[in-house]
């Protein structure tokens, strides 16, 4: 009896799940394909838009800005430098617009292979 009642629900539920899951999963696939095509697409779009951006900029490592040490299980907070000296003073922001470069695609390229 229980099985007879559950059968139509299970069947319809799975069908509905498949139908809706397709839409939801498409979002993930779209994200994936967007991510893999980011470099070329983003570059082309930015070039077409006329927006001046700088690719290939590298943030200066924080460790080079302030000295930080870590002991066993403890984070020692010994930031040095003038970063914190002027408390709450406005900071300078340059006009350059930076964007991150995605990692180069090296799939299918083995060591020693001609590139």
């Amino acid at each position: 009896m229980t099985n007879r009642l559950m059968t139509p629900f299970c069947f319809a539920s799975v069908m509905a799940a498949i139908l809706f899951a397709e839409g939801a999963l498409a979002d993930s696939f779209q994200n994936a394909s967007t991510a893999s095509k980011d470099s070329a697409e983003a570059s082309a779009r930015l070039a077409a838009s006329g927006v001046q951006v700088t690719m290939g900029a590298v943030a200066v490592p924080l460790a080079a800005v302030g000295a930080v040490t870590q002991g066993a299980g403890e984070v020692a907070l010994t930031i040095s430098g003038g970063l914190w000296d002027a408390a709450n003073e406005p900071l300078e922001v340059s006009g350059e617009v930076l964007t991150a470069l995605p990692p180069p695609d090296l799939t299918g390229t083995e060591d020693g292979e001609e590139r």
Partner: protein
Amino acid sequence: MLRGMICAAFVATLAIGGPGPAAAQDSSGAAAADHLTAEEARAFSKEIEQTLAARGAVVAIVFRAGRPREDLPEGFAYTHGAFWVYQPARLPDGREVKGYAVHNLYSGDGDSLPVTKSKLVQDFPFDFAAGSHEDDVAIIVPTREVQQRLYGVIASPAYSALHVDEYSLVSNPADARYQNCNEFMLDVLAAAVWETADYAQIKVNLAASFRPSRVKAGGLKRLFAPLMDARLRTGDHDGPVETVTFESLTAFMQTHGYAQEVLQLETGGAAAAFTLP
């Protein structure tokens, strides 16, 4: 039989359709959301930077809506958050420019990394703004003391040690199994304020003192959720699905005196103080 099937399909449709927990968080690294044009994203990223710089913020927490707000569960205004750190950048021509770098946790793209995994990525304000599906972001400016402590953690090996690469859209902040972008930020904040890199201790502390946001999800939604998005993993929840959001992080930081200012910034507009409902 047919009536039963139609009825059951309707119930299942209600259970699966609509904004569900799948949209609760989204640490997707897919950059362009196609909501803002490149020029709008450029301008908006500079507005965010200027807003932070005007307040002398060396470290801030910024949130964007990585999905249209109408698709988000009730009570969830933003999906992705990241640390913005005042950090010089070196250009390819050797010049050094001043501004912010953005420190993110991104879920895998399903191509180079499975969607159920995550990685720590540093990019820039333009990349962050380009991923917004709405015309606004939310900003938490920590107190000076907390900024200094956050900076210390972000700059130390503890930062990457706090990363759990098993990703869930609705990770439980009291459980160490899964993590998403917002839980990672909470963990970094916890390391900073408790001055510890002991992850087990951090989870115990947060379980006792942090009140996460509850995701309204019926039993059927929970049942079918894994079919919707592989990143929706709920094995770390014993009861209701509760996770870290902008709202719960803000409440935690304000309650304990960690936040100096909470703002909402719209494209082309001035920053306005944000008050939790």
